[in-house]
């Protein structure tokens, strides 16, 4: 569509690069890199994906509009993953304020009365201000 003619040589080189990437992925699978296992596999996969998109799918020589379309696809993937992960990362952050635990149940009678008084005192100026 852009009218840019890519030489066959480029396609062959990209194909070879993809093959090398595949070989690297397979090779890396035999080496235990600990926590880096996934990182390395994903990094190789991302490189291969970029090569396919930029060259085989002609995005490198396409119009700005086409690049925006492709970029927005990735942006949406980022939205999907980041907001979903925000749930998983913060699920355990549920606050555990003092006074909720079982230990306070023992001292509850005296604490309760003093807390209630404080609450009444605290509420009074607020309601006065509202009036």
């Amino acid at each position, binding site marked *: 569509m852009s009218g840019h003619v890519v030489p066959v040589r480029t396609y062959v080189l990209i194909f070879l690069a993809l093959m090398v990437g595949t070989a690297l992925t397979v090779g890396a699978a035999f080496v235990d890199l600990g926590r880096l296992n996934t990182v390395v596999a994903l990094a190789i996969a991302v490189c291969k994906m970029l090569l396919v998109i930029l060259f085989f799918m002609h995005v490198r020589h396409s119009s700005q*509009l086409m690049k925006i379309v492709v970029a*927005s*696809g990735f942006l*949406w993937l980022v*939205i*999907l993953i980041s*907001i*979903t992960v*925000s*749930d*998983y*990362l*913060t*699920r355990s*952050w*549920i606050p555990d304020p003092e006074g909720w635990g079982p230990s306070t149940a023992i001292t509850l009678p005296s604490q309760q009365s003093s807390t209630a008084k404080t609450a009444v005192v605290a509420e009074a100026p607020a309601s006065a201000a509202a009036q």
Partner: protein
Amino acid sequence: MHYPRIESHVHYLNVNYGIRSWLFTTDHKRIGLLYLASVTFMFLVGGLAAVLMRLQLVEPQGTLLEPDTFNKMFSTHGIVMIFFFLIPAIPAVLGNFLVPMMIGARDLAFPRINLLSWYVYLVGAILTLIAILNGGVDTGWTFYTPYSSTYSNSNVLLVGIAAFITGFSSILTGLNFIVTIHKMRAPGLTWSRLPLFIWAHYATSLIMLLGTPVLAITLVLLALERILHAGIFDPKLGGDPLLFQHLFWFYSHPAVYIMILPAMGVVSELITCFSRKRIFGYKVVAFSSLAIAVLGFLVWGHHMFVTGQSVYAGLIFSALSFLVAIPSAIKVFNWTATLYKGSISHDAPMLYALGFIGLFTMGGLTGLFLASLATDVHLNGTYFIVAHFHYIMVGGTIMAYLGGIHFWWPKISGRLYPDKWARFAALVIFIGFNLTFFPQFLLGYLGMPRRYAFYPQEFQVLNVLSSAGASVLGVGYAIPLIYLIWSLRYGPPAGPNPWGAKGLEWQTPSPPPTENFEETPIVTEEAYAYASEDHELV
């Protein structure tokens, strides 16, 4: 009175005849009609399931359906109505017919892909019908895990495959619209002159392209877990059941906007035409469509407030859900402002548009109850939700769809329908709709859960009201079906522009020729330039 057949000019309906000329057509107008027939049939299937449910719920201990069958009925109703009626209804029928005509093009950018999308839809629909006839599915339209992945013995896989396939029909239509709107606008038709119907369809297409693949991936993951026991959603295998809901709603909440945005586009056309006014705040209405499309992707977690989702994520999702109400409200206020001091006429399409504004507003505002974290705890999973989304989808989308069908029917068929019957039907639908769904708000508030085949005695009056309303609604839907088919043969010829409407589609004969326009039109004025002809109204 019997009017002569419309043979005065060659148009898309009489250019050739025979079943092959329809099944192999690449004419966007004919494909629109193929979709019209298909979605109407699926609407009847989904409607039948609703009828059986409402009959069951007339009595607290209804004996019409077994509880298992009841589960299958609400699942069928949801799956058929959402995937096979509401999502394709306006884009694939009215959008297919009108997008090229409104921008002065001869067809969509990819006519064969357009036909392919209908066949893909057809395959999905047939698979769903086979699944229904073969015992049905009982997971609800949401396919929640672990029920769908582990426990359900019904046809989950087949319906999942059907939804997966039908999604591609949506993707193809969205792709076609985006390319067409970018590349094939008539000379002079700048972005700021586009009809709001086109803006709405552009925004809808963005959602179709960006969201639908996620549904496809989710259904594939579901199948992998069901068949191969891959640990994705099952905690025993290292998965997380909530992950399914995240992925599912990432598509399915924006899917609500796939259903409502085109409806808003239709309403903008109707309100301007029948109040003889320019739209109030064109740019704001246009950009609010895009804002809805983008913000609609950020709110999915409000379906999950009570599922064990992080409370912090819940807070953010709640705030964002309030935010997405703003562009919708902007549209409602701007339509109302457009009506102000307009020369309003109450033709049938306008009655539907006015009905839309009221019902959509109620649906939208009750959505805010559900977007609030605290009230959602009480209302989630009750009939309040059922009422809320029916006010959006039936009160909103179907009202606008019927308004659009009535508005463009003279263009589609070349015939006029009996106006009095049309107004009567609009009234019956409005009354029937409210009678059906308003009691459900009360039922939900009182605590009646959704998806139950039985209920306590105290809820019977409201349930009977709702079922009675459903029968009125059914009659309301049957009337247009009858007189629209009647009008195909007996209706008086419409002429090119029976409403005196603006827009390129009205500047060509009715029915339009295959190429839409004899000469490519040149656009010299903005959309809805009604005031330039009529006296200055504001």
